[in-house]
Structures are given as structure tokens and as C-alpha cells.
């Protein structure tokens, strides 16, 4: 029983001149209840577009060209405005990028959380306040009350991030989409946030789509990993497999770029790291064939003209690469 099913989602951005730039093309994946799906993508891969598109929060020049987003059976792309509003925050929580500016600068924290509860549940004032306090207490181990009375600029980056998390889970959603929630935090705070997510997953049976560009974060955290490249799903599979033996040339190349493990031999210090040659493609050029082909070490003749389809390489593991086709 899937919680979220995305089929063939395609999104493009249109410039005033009428030119279009495809940001996502034919994206397919599913998320089960209580599952953490890690979406791994670099800049330009379309990961933020994906997060926004799921709830139709694209900017005015972004159009969803085709596809469907089935959440608990309903297609979100066809939902009426009021129905969509109820789902946003109510059934699906969203943590967008830029935590430092995602909070209203002149409203108190408890008010910003209470407004969300009020928007989805018809409770009286006292019940809302109680629920708000509960939420803040669940993300802040100490000092929850003082933080509730503070303003965003009085909090540190980590504290603001926790507030965003409290906002996302305020109404007990079954899915949270988090777009780089730990990007601007240092390692210990990052770890605390990941722990918090794990705790929430256990207590609330929360499913998550965790978007990041750092593969190391997903180890031991995500159940499955989806790799996004140039707006297309390159590979999707269980985390241990994906991180130890990836099959798509891009995933392989990406993981090889990382500096040596901390525990391994240090004779390799200041050696050249592996890089992926070339630059990410300019999607506005609408190139044919595999988008990774120009940079791929394993490219074949057919890759220039043919777009790869998803092929199953083992259980739950799919790769979109012509090496595995047919």
C-alpha cells in the first residue's frame, strides 16, 4: 500500500520569450508509509522543483506539463484549491530551503506554529495553545516556552530548523518533504536534526522524502535512495546497495568524488580527487538521448540518440541506463 505515487511527472519553466526549460522529465517513484526516501541530487538536478511540484507550489513561470501525484489515492495535481490547501500542512508537511528566511520576521514563534494548527483543525483557542506547546516541547528538549515567545532573529540556525520541523509536523501529516533541511548547519546540529527526524518517524509513523546533495547523510538514515540527474531519475534502490555498489555511471562517479573515508589510509592526502568531467547539462537546449552521456565514462554509441528507460537490476533496484536495457 503506497502512500505517495508519482508517475511520469514532467515540469518545465517558461521564460517570457516563450522558451521552455524542462526541469523534471518522466519522474516515477513511490513512497510507502513510514518510509524514508532519500533524494540525492546536485544543483540543477531538479530536486527543489520536485519538492515544490508535489504540492503545486511552483513559481508562476513553472508549469506541470504531465504526470500524476497520487497521495492516499487522490491525484494532487487535479485537486481543487481548498482541498489542496487542506493537504498542504495537514497531510503533507513541507520543509523548504532557506531556513533562515522561512519564518516571518516579526511574528513570535508560537504564533507561527499556532496559525498552522488553526488553519487545519477547528479547535478553540486554549486547545490550539496546548497543541502548540506540545509541538514545541517535542522538538526542543529544553526551553521550549522561552523559544515560543521569541522571534526568529533571536534563534540560532539549528533552533530555527527545529521550528520549521515543528511547523511541518504540526497537524500530524503522514508525509514530510524536506528540501536540504541540514544544509546550513554544522555537523553536531545536523546529527541532532537527523535524530529528531528518526524519533518523529518512530512516534508519528512519518514517511519522509529527504532531499540532499550529500550522499553521506543518507547512510544509515534513508531506507531507499533516489538519484536525480538533469531532472530524470537515474537510479533508485535500497540505501546500502546504492551506496556500496551503485550501478548508474553517474551515481558511481558521484560517490567516487568524495574524499577518502576518515578511517582509511591517510597517505592519500592532497591527492587528486576523482571528478566528473564536464558540467551539468543546460536543459534549455533540449538535448536528445541520455543526459549524462557527454560526461559518462561508460558511454556507448546508442546513448547519444536514445533516452534510457528504467530497468530492474535486482529487487527494488532500478537503473535508467542503456547498459542495462533489454
Amino acid at each position, binding site marked *: 500500500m503506497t502512500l505517495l505515487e508519482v508517475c511520469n511527472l514532467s515540469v518545465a519553466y517558461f521564460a517570457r520569450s516563450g522558451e521552455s526549460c524542462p526541469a523534471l522529465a518522466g519522474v516515477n517513484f513511490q513512497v510507502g508509509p513510514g518510509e524514508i526516501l532519500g533524494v540525492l541530487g*546536485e544543483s540543477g538536478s531538479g530536486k527543489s522543483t520536485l519538492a515544490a511540484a508535489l504540492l503545486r507550489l511552483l513559481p508562476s513561470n513553472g508549469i506541470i506539463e504531465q504526470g500524476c501525484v497520487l497521495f492516499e489515492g487522490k491525484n494532487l495535481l487535479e485537486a481543487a484549491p481548498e482541498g489542496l490547501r487542506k493537504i498542504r500542512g495537514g497531510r503533507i508537511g513541507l520543509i523548504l530551503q532557506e531556513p533562515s528566511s522561512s519564518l516571518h520576521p516579526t511574528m513570535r514563534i508560537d504564533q507561527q506554529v499556532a496559525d498552522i494548527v488553526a488553519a487545519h483543525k477547528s479547535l478553540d483557542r486554549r486547545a490550539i495553545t496546548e497543541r502548540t506547546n506540545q509541538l514545541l516541547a517535542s522538538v526542543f528538549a529544553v526551553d521550549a516556552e522561552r523559544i515560543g515567545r521569541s522571534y526568529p532573529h533571536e534563534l540560532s540556525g539549528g533552533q530555527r530548523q527545529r521550528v520549521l520541523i515543528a511547523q511541518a509536523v504540526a497537524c500530524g501529516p503522514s508525509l514530510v518533504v524536506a528540501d536540504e533541511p541540514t544544509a546550513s*548547519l*554544522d555537523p553536531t546540529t545536523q546529527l541532532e536534526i537527523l*535524530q529528531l527526524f528518526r524519533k518523529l518517524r518512530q512516534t508519528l509513523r512519518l514517511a519522509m522524502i529527504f532531499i540532499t546533495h550529500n550522499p*553521506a547523510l543518507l*547512510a544509515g538514515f534513508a531506507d531507499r535512495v533516489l538519484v536525480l540527474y538533469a531532472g530524470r531519475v537515474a537510479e533508485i534502490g535500497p540505501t546500502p546497495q546504492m551506496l556500496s555498489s551503485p550501478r548508474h555511471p553517474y551515481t558511481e562517479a558521484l560517490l567516487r568524488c568524495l574524499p577518502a*573515508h576518515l578511517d582509511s589510509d591517510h597517505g*592519500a*592526502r592532497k591527492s587528486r580527487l576523482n571528478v566528473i568531467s564536464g*558540467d551539468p547539462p543546460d536543459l534549455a537546449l533540449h538535448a536528445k538521448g541520455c543526459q549524462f552521456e557527454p560526461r559518462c565514462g561508460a558511454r556507448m554509441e546508442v546513448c547519444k540518440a536514445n533516452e534510457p528507460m528504467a530497468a530492474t537490476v535486482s529487487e527494488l533496484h532500478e537503473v535508467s541506463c542503456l547498459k542495462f536495457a533489454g
Partner: protein
Amino acid sequence: MEPLLKVENLVKRYAAGRSRASGHKFAALDGVSLSIAPQTTLALMGESGSGKSTLALCIACLERPTSGSISFEGIDVAALEETQLRVMRPQIQLVFQDPASSLNPRWSALDLVREPLFVQRRFRQPEREHKALELLDRVALPRKLAGRRADELSGGQKQRVAIARALALEPKLMLLDEALSALDCSVQAQISNLLVDLQSSLGLTYLFITHDFAMAAHLADQIAVMERGRIVESGPAEKILCAPSHDATRALLASTPRFTETPSVLVNA
């Protein structure tokens, strides 16, 4: 060998109001001492608020320390007047974390790299352009991007421009304040390689501020760990990585995400 940079007992206090927690004077740096040998890399690590950026700003002479000395090639730059400082500034250059906000988005890459030459009145007009293009070549930015505005470049390209700009005045010491943190993994690898190449070809010395232990392990000869305005541990990179002795170091190491296994803290959560 004489260290290129020697910081001794540096203290920097900020007046009330800057501290977000309390209202009294806040010591961002509380007696910091370190030294960097020429043509080596020192990684400065620590949590946010530990004072790493303040230290960089003081060394770059963008902030005046409250007390202590900063000896660069034997000269105490903390005690210099502004006019004397102007002569020293080209030797110590900064590269910041976020190229989007450290580069003027409306200027072209070429203009950005030319500017330091103009400000310090080096070369003449036509030579400056030539020199700037040379610098862009050195950081492997394709010539066709030289005329592009900064906001039209990707993160990695912007950071290359920032590095080229820092190289314009032929510095001896480069302060890299989380210069790789905002970049994608594959781009981090490219810029890391660039930095290593530049160090060996130009004889640069780096103070590399980061909280990424993996990158520090890869790039640094020495590591210093800061906590609350002090250096709590420092030494050769291998020693710090294999046998950390301070809690702050251990905490940082433990929270660095790794591949082969789940960080133990997460497992026990």
C-alpha cells in the same frame, strides 16, 4: 622553519548587543594562539559560534583584535596603521563561503577579477585585462564565461572566480572560510583539486576553515579545533584524526556522516 603566520594570545571582544544570548560583552576570541608553516594547510575546525570566522577576519585585518598579536612574516599586522596595512593586505586574501553574496552579481567575471588590480593600482589598464584573463585560465574558468555576469554562473564557477580574484594580488596566505561548504560534492572535488594544484604551483599557504572532517582530513597538514573562542586541540592531521584528545574534537568526528557504517550516535538513538 619560520612560520608564515603566528597568532599569539589573540582576544576579540564584542560590545553588548552582538551576543545573541546575553547582554554583556562577549569574547568571540579568548586567547587564541596558532602558527602556520609556509606552503602548508591548517584546517581550523569547530562549531558555529566557536570563533573561526572571527579569527579569519582578524587575520585578514578586517577586524581589529582587542589584544594579542598576529605576526605575518615577522610583522605584527594587528598593530599597523591603516596606511601601512594597505601594503600588507595583498599578502593575505580571503575566500568566503557563499560566492553569491561575496561577488557582485551584476559584474562580469572579468571585472570582478580585475577590481583588486585596479584598487591596488597594479599594472595599467590593458595589462589588467590580460592579467585577469590569465587568472581565470589558472582557475580553469572557460574564457567564454569571462564576460558573463556573476549571477549567471553556477556555484562552482562563482567560487572559481572568487579564488581567481583572491589570487590577483599574488598573496602568500589564503584564508578559505568554508569555501567548499556550499558546493555540490562533485564540484567540491574539482575545487579541492584546484586548491591543491595552486598550492604546489604558487607556493600558497592555506588556513582552511571548515566543519567537514572528511575534507579536512584530505587537505590539511595540521588541524586545530576551536571551541568557545579558544583552541582546544591542535596538531598534525593524522594525530588528531586517529587519537583525538578533546571532547569537542571527538564530538565533531562522531557527527561527521560516514559511509561504511551508521554514526554510532544514530544507531543508539
